């Protein structure tokens, strides 16, 4: 568990410092990072670039606090609060706080997979995204969700 706690500390420090290299270095060469807004990124370079080029294009002053970590073997989770100041045309001057859960898979002391669950409705509302645009985004994300194989029994 100490190793997991240490990795989480390095994870959040890298994000808050906009350090794409340090962030990417936490992941295996074939690691998958599924960002809830931007989608999937594979490998340390793409994951580091996601942080530097995408996140920090849309926002500033990222803060991430992880807590209540649990790890068993190659699978772990942590709860977190995540916040940033908006920098896009809808969000400049606005501040968003999210409450999230992250899932991590491990291999060889690094992360080989990252998934997260958060509420985009709360995030977009704080960022001033218009309601009709939210409906469109919701429809797109629904389509992506319904295409997942583990959803099939529910259709």
């Amino acid at each position: 568990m100490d190793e997991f706690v240490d990795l989480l500390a390095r994870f959040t420090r890298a994000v808050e410092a906009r350090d794409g290299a340090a962030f990417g270095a936490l992941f295996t060469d074939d690691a998958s990072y599924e960002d809830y807004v931007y989608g999937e990124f594979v490998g340390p370079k793409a994951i580091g670039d996601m942080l530097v080029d995408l996140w920090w294009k849309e926002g500033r002053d990222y803060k991430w606090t992880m807590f209540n970590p649990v790890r068993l073997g190659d699978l772990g989770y942590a709860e977190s609060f995540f916040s940033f100041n908006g920098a896009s045309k809808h969000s400049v001057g606005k501040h968003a706080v999210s409450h999230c859960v992250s899932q991590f898979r491990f291999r060889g002391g690094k992360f080989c997979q990252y998934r997260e669950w958060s509420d985009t409705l709360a995030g977009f509302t704080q960022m001033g995204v218009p309601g009709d645009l939210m409906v469109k985004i919701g429809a797109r994300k629904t389509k992506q969700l319904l295409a997942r194989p583990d959803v099939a029994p529910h259709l």
Partner: protein
Amino acid sequence: MSEFTALLSRFTATVEANDGVAFGRLFTDDGTYEDHAYGRFTGPAEIARMVNEIWLRDGRDYKWDMRDAVAEGPWGYANFTFSFVGATKYNDGRRMVTDGAARFGLRDGKLTSYREWMDNLVALQQLGTPPEVMLRFGGKIIDRIRAQPASARHLKEGKS
């Protein structure tokens, strides 16, 4: 099957069977269930009422699949796929499907707490919720996030 995965099996089976009483019994006397839509319920009787009087009023044919469960000490987590057929004025019997993750508080084989994370935008869009109602709902979620002491560091805008 571990004790935690056995507990999760009973958790989902009682919901799918519309058995609020059996569901409530999975919780300690002071156990809390924080529902993403309806708020917090405390104790087996209130949690049973949440299922029997609220969930079953607003939906039917609930399905819940838990996976990737881990537990250690006082906490467990799992992620899930959850669906139901809506029965409110904004939808006409459409099935809503969402995925999410949950954190379980654990003590002596029972649940001391349940909290979930899922994308309300995806859920409400499937249920035909008008944009203005979505925004109001988003506002309530934001209030809940900001009211939590652990979020204090994140409420101050700008650099820390």
